[in-house]
C-alpha cells in the first residue's frame, strides 16, 4: 500500500509539472523553423530545394510545397524549348504553394494570394548568353489570373501575339492562358526571340484558354466579359484591371474591374451573385466614401438611382443595374463624371445588365 501511495504521489507531481509546462517554450517552437543549413537547399530538385524546410524540421511547409497542384505545373516547364539556340533548362523546376510562395518572392506573394493563388513553378534556363527564368502561376480562376496579370501591367509594354492578354517589355513577357499566369524574364534586352520561344513551349502544355471567363477569352457562362462592357470611346489602351480584393482601398469591395479614360475618370464594374449582393457592395462603398470625407451631392443628371459623392477635386458616382455594381471613380469634376457614367450605363443596358 505504501508503495502504491508513493507511486500515486509521483503521478500527481508529474501531472502537475506537465500542467505547469503545457505551454511549449516559444523560443524552441520558432527555432524549429529556422532556415535550412547551407548546402542542403541547393541539393538537387525542387523538393530538397525547399530552403525553409529547415533541415527537414519544417515538414508542414515541405508537404505544402509538394501539393499535387504544384507538382503538376512543374511538369509544364519543359527541359528545353524546340530549336537550336532555344532555351535549355539549367536545373529542375522548383514549386511553391500558398504556404511557401513568399519564400521565393517575399512581399509580392500577397498580390497573388489575394487574387486567388494555388501553386507556382519556376525554372531557370540558358539561351546563348542570356539567363531566362520562367514563373508559372496557377490561379483559382481565369479572373484570378487576369487580376495577377493586369495588376502588374507595365506601361509601354507591347502586345505579344502569343495570347490575347500577353505583354512584352524590353526583357520580359507576361501572359495569361486560362487560369495560368506566365512570366518569362531575361537578364538582358536582346533575348526577345528566346522569351517567345520558351513561352510558346510552355503554352503548348497548358490547357486551351477557350471557355475562360474574364478578359482572356469568351466567358464560361453566357455573360459578356466585363471588360467588353466598358465604353470604348476615350478608353486608355491596356488600362482594364481587376482588383480581386479591397478595390480603391475599400475593405470588402471585391472583384472590381476598372478602366481608365482619357478624361481622367476611372469607370468600374463588378458583376455580383445577385442584385442584393450588388446593392450591398454599393452600400459598402458608399459608406467608405462618406467615412473618408466625401459628401453626398444632388444626383441630377446622373444615371437613374445613382449616388453622386464629391470631395475637393474628386467625384464618385455609383449605381447598380441588376446584379452589376458600376460607377465612376475619382473623376476630376462633376461634368466629366456624369458623362462617363452615362456612357457606362448605356453600355450596361446594351449588355442586358439592367435585369
Amino acid at each position, binding site marked *: 500500500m505504501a508503495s502504491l501511495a508513493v507511486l500515486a504521489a509521483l503521478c500527481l507531481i508529474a501531472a502537475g509539472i506537465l500542467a505547469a509546462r503545457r505551454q511549449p517554450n*516559444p*523560443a524552441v517552437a*520558432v527555432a524549429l523553423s529556422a532556415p535550412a543549413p*547551407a548546402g542542403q537547399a541547393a541539393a538537387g530538385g525542387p523538393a530538397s530545394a525547399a530552403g525553409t524546410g529547415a*533541415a527537414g524540421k519544417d515538414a508542414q511547409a515541405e508537404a505544402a510545397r509538394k501539393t499535387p497542384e504544384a507538382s503538376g505545373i512543374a511538369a509544364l516547364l519543359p527541359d528545353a524549348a524546340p530549336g537550336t539556340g532555344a532555351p535549355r533548362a539549367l536545373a529542375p523546376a522548383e514549386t511553391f504553394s500558398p504556404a511557401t510562395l513568399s519564400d521565393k518572392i517575399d512581399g509580392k506573394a500577397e*498580390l497573388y494570394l489575394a487574387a486567388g493563388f494555388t501553386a507556382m513553378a519556376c525554372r531557370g534556363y540558358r539561351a546563348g548568353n542570356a539567363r531566362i527564368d520562367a514563373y508559372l502561376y496557377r490561379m483559382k480562376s481565369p479572373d484570378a489570373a487576369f487580376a495577377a496579370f493586369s495588376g502588374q501591367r*507595365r506601361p509601354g509594354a507591347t502586345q505579344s501575339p502569343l495570347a490575347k492578354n500577353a505583354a512584352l*517589355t524590353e526583357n520580359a513577357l507576361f501572359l495569361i492562358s486560362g487560369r495560368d499566369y506566365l512570366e518569362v*524574364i531575361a537578364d538582358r534586352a536582346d533575348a526577345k526571340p528566346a522569351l517567345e520561344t520558351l513561352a510558346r513551349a510552355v503554352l503548348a502544355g497548358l490547357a486551351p484558354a477557350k471557355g475562360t471567363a474574364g478578359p482572356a477569352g469568351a466567358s464560361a457562362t453566357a455573360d459578356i466579359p466585363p471588360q467588353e462592357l466598358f465604353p470604348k470611346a476615350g478608353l486608355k489602351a491596356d488600362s482594364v484591371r481587376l482588383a480581386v480584393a479591397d478595390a480603391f482601398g475599400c475593405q470588402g469591395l471585391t472583384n472590381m474591374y476598372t478602366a481608365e479614360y482619357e478624361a481622367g475618370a476611372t469607370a468600374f464594374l463588378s458583376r455580383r451573385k445577385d442584385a442584393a449582393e450588388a446593392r450591398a457592395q454599393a452600400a459598402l462603398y458608399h459608406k467608405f466614401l462618406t467615412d473618408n470625407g466625401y459628401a453626398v451631392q444632388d444626383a441630377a443628371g446622373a444615371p437613374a438611382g445613382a449616388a453622386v459623392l464629391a470631395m475637393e477635386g474628386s467625384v464618385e458616382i455609383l449605381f447598380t443595374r441588376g446584379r452589376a455594381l458600376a460607377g465612376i471613380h475619382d473623376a476630376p469634376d462633376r461634368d466629366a463624371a456624369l458623362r462617363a457614367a452615362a456612357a457606362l450605363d448605356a453600355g450596361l443596358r446594351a449588355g442586358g445588365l439592367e435585369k
Partner: protein
Amino acid sequence: MADAHELSRRDFLRRAAGASAVALAGVGLAAALLDKNGPPASEAGSSAKGLGDFALPELKGRPGRMAVVRADPKAGAPDRRAMLERALEAVGGLGAYVKPGDRVLLKVNAAFATSPNLGATTHPDLVAAMAALCAKAGAAQVAVTDNPIHSPESCFALTGIADAAAKAGAKLLLPREELFTPVNAPGGRLLRDWPTLSGAFRGVSKLIVLSPVKDHHRAGASMTLKNFYGFLGGRRNVFHQDINGVIAELAVLTRPTLCVMDGVTVMLTNGPTGGSFADLKAMNVLAVSTDPVAADAFGMELLGRRAADAPYIAMAQAAGAGGADYKALNPSFLDLGA
C-alpha cells in the same frame, strides 16, 4: 533449489517504499527548481541587447551624418565605387567609422536569385567597393550576409554578390542553422524569441547596411529598414500581416554604423521582385547616412513618394531608431565629377 536470499513481502515493500521516496525526492527537487519562464534567450540575442548597437559612440544623442552623391549620366555608366568614396568623404571618411582591427559585417539584400541588372538586390559593385574600402581602412575581417530564406547559395551566386565578396577578400556568411538564436526586439510586440541571424554578429564591431531602393508591394518601399528583415529566420512571412509593425521593431533590433542606399537604379514599380526593366529607372544617386530612418525617408523621395507613404518610417522614428526629417542632418548634396 530455493533462493537463500528470497525476499520477504515486508522487505519488498520496505525497499519499494525507499526507492519511491528517493524518486519522490528527486521529482520534488526538480519541481522546486522548475523555471516556469523557460530558458532565457542566448547571450547573443538577449532582449536587452537585440543584435547590438554599432553606431559611433560620439554620435549618440546627436544628429547623424548624411551625404548624397549624384552621378552625371552623360559621363557614362555610374561608377558606384567613385560615388561611394565621394559620399564617405563627405561624412568624414570611412576611417572615421572603420578602424584598424575592426570586424565589419556588411548586410546586403540578396533576397532573390536574380541577375543584378534586374535591380532587386544589392548591386555587387557596391558590395565589392565597400568591402575593399573597409579592408583598406584596416578592417581585420569583412563579412557579407543575408538570409534569403529560399536557396541562399543560388541567391548569392546569381546576384553576383558571392563573386564580388570573394574578389574583394570578404567572407560570405550563408545563413546556416547554427547562426540563428531566439532574439527579442527591445520593447517588441512581434519579435519575441524569434530566430534571428545573431551568429553573424559574433565578434562584429561595425555593421554597414547596403540596400537597393525599391517599391514593395506589401511595405510600400524596401530600402534600409526593410533590409533588416533579412536578419530574421523562421516562417517570417507571418509578419507580412503587420509589415509596418515588424519593420519598426526591426529598426530597434540593431543600430548600424553606416547605411548605404543605392539609388543608381531604382525599382519604381512591381517591387520587391520587379522582373522587367520597365520597373526600373536610372536615378544615378547614392546616399550614405548614419541614420537608417533618415536614409529611408530620403529614399522615399527617390521613389517619388512621401515618407508618410511608408508608415514604418514614422513608427521607427517613434521607436527611437532615428529621424525621418533627413534634412535635419544637413546632408551634403554632391555631384560626382563636379
